[in-house]
């Protein structure tokens, strides 16, 4: 019960972080909100693994832990080039 409440709280912080996706102003700010989803989603998985007594969720979290960073790396290397102007997008 406590653990479900903790997971709900983490979900609420993720939803609050979505405001940064709407406000921007640069693309990187939006990408950082995605990184926040990665960390908070990982924490939610770990808490639910304890709360719902499903230890296999820890294995999923182990695979999940690098996905958000792969997304950020791909974004920096492939999308967010030096020249293009994205301040207003």
């Amino acid at each position: 019960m406590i653990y479900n409440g903790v997971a709900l709280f983490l979900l609420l912080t993720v939803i609050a972080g979505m405001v940064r996706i709407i406000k921007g102003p640069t693309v990187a700010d939006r990408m950082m909100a995605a990184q926040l989803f990665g960390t908070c989603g990982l924490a939610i998985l770990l808490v639910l693994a304890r709360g719902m007594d499903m230890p296999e969720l820890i294995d999923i979290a182990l695979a999940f832990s690098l996905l958000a960073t792969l997304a950020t790396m791909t974004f920096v290397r492939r999308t967010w080039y030096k020249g293009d102007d994205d301040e207003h997008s």
Partner: protein
Amino acid sequence: MNIHESAGLFFIAAAMVFFLSGTVGLLRFPDIYTRLHALTKADNVGLGLLILGLSLQAPDWLTVAKLILIWLLVLLASSTSCHLVARRALQKDIKPWALK
């Protein structure tokens, strides 16, 4: 409720404070560098405290090893991506907030 359970709950509650401050920092800080600071530090301390709390309650050592491995991977990954984003932002001439 034994001592491990309650100590674990204490650390999980402390982790919630750090997660909350990370999100508030992401929403309230003025520019991209300070937001990176809030995101990649506060959230990882929060995750570390959460993993400490869950490790105290874990049934066996394999679970503890997996949890600590997750934390180390996240530390490595988030510091790498923080440096990448900050360096690319500097290359794109986004001025830090204090220098404006």
